[in-house]
């Protein structure tokens, strides 16, 4: 009976992880620049973006961010139980839903890692023989939190430098609108490459869904073959998420980006992709939206445009609050499970 219950729970977790992968695709707006610039037909752009995101997710499922979320973040000898993973998913989804209804832009990555933190601390405090000091891999967690602060800053710096460099070497030499239009015509195709590059790394760094699957694999609930099979399914569903659901966000954002020059899109996408690539190689799950926001600020500062620092400050407060609130929420939920004898 208990084994059957655990099996059902594992199936539920796998379904939730796949749904999470779908929602990652559904919330991905990387293609907006490409659609806004009118490089490709909308449906073709969606297909290319879907494939790139899925490929990125699948190619890097063997370790990197998935391994960090699913195993490395935990202390020595600690593995997830199915209820821990269930709590992590419920808590992060709940906090994101609350944030969406309140109109607060939140990071799913911060929410997930915060939830893991809350669950493990409650587990350590309630489980005899587990030292809260060693229940988590504090070095890894510290690196992750540090990367959350460093990645937007580097996004800002890389974009700023990249723009200044391209402006000095090429853009400032363009004198007339005809010349600008001609060069932007070529930039459009480079933008296509930059967006594919960015989309692959967005997929590679989206460790939320694969982290849960890796946790199941690490705890022995699924084997390696099953893990890779579900990772492929997650990749496919992330792609479907773009094609089916993200199209509305992309269309909406693209219509606002019609005036954006393809060269600016290239700078933004390349900068954010570089940051995501470095973070993924180091196995650090970072927020793509935080990086892209700072890349946009970097570009605005480089172009001497105004930046809404008030709105940015407000956003920063929510970003910082996400981790502790998700941790508290997960802690309470998991405590509830323990209370009912479901550790």
């Amino acid at each position, binding site marked *: 009976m208990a084994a059957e219950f655990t099996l059902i729970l594992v199936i539920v977790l796998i379904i939730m992880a796949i749904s999470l992968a779908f929602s990652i695709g559904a919330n991905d707006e990387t293609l907006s620049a490409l659609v806004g*610039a009118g490089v490709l037909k909308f449906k073709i752009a969606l297909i290319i973006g879907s494939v790139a995101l899925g490929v990125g997710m699948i190619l890097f499922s063997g370790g990197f961010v998935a391994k960090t979320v699913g195993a490395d973040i935990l202390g020595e000898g600690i593995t997830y139980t199915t209820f821990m993973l269930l709590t992590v998913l419920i808590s992060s989804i709940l906090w994101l839903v609350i944030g969406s209804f309140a109109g607060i832009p939140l990071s799913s990555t911060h929410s997930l890692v915060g939830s893991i933190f809350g669950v493990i601390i409650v587990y350590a405090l309630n489980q005899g023989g587990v030292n809260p000091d060693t229940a988590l891999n504090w070095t890894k967690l510290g690196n992750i939190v540090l990367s959350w602060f460093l990645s937007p800053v580097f996004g800002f710096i890389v974009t700023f430098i990249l723009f200044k460099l391209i402006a000095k070497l090429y853009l400032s030499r363009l004198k007339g609108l005809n010349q600008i*239009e001609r060069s*932007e015509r070529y930039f459009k195709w480079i933008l296509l490459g930059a967006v594919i590059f960015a989309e692959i790394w967005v997929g590679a760094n989206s460790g939320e869904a694969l982290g849960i699957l890796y946790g199941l694999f690490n705890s022995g609930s699924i084997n390696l073959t099953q893990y890779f099979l579900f990772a492929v399914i997650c990749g496919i569903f992330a792609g479907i998420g773009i094609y089916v659901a993200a199209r509305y966000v992309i269309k909406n954002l693209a219509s606002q980006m019609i005036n954006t020059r393809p060269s600016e899109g290239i700078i933004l996408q390349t900068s954010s992709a570089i940051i995501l690539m470095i973070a993924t190689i180091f196995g650090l799950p970072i927020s793509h939206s935080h990086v892209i926001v700072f890349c946009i600020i970097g570009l605005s500062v480089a172009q001497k445009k105004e930046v809404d620092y008030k709105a940015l400050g407000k956003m920063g407060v929510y970003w910082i609050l996400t981790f502790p609130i998700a941790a508290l929420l997960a802690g309470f939920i998991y405590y509830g499970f323990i209370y009912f004898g479901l550790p």
Partner: protein
Amino acid sequence: MEDLDINEIDEKKLLKLSIDELTRLFAKNINEQTLKLIEGIEFLVDENFEKFIESMKYVIKTNTEVHIKKVFESKIFKSKLMFSKADRLKLFTKINDIKNIGEFLANKMLLYRVVFPDDTFKLQILDILKSLRLISTEISEAVNLIGSDLSKAYKVCENIKEERRSMRRKEWKLINRLYNYDMDYLSRTFLYLKELIETIMMLADHIKNFSEYIQFLSTKYLIFD
């Protein structure tokens, strides 16, 4: 493009032109009509009514720009240059507005055969027309420069704004003179001259606004290192 005469171009030739070439041709055509309008008012000042009516009718009846407009609109609609599409369209619309105001002025001027009060008034209005001729030609030049050199276009627009400021001073002098004439017995003349000055200034105002729009485009598109 420079040698093209709008009266000799058929739709096939127009279709071969780029969006920028069509814009330039359109600006050239509208400038020619504005110059004809100014020339007509000068005939009126000289009391050469026959030539004046001929010029006004030319401005009203000429519709060669309609063909350019039609081709431009079909081309811009299909254009894949998203980032500059709206600006190109707005640019074209602003050129078209010059024609609309010119046509409005020409129609209004044909309503009554006016005789100017004195030679000083005539000289002052000719001075305003001289400025209008200058800014009309310069705005056409600025449109020509948008495609090749936005910095130069910006500078030309600065000249237009400066000339427009001097026109304003001339306008107040003229209005002041008009209000001090004892013309109550000839209220139609007063009304006609007042409206003539105001509509000329309306055209000048539009050209000035247009030049500011070109300056906006220059700052938008030019990147400085």
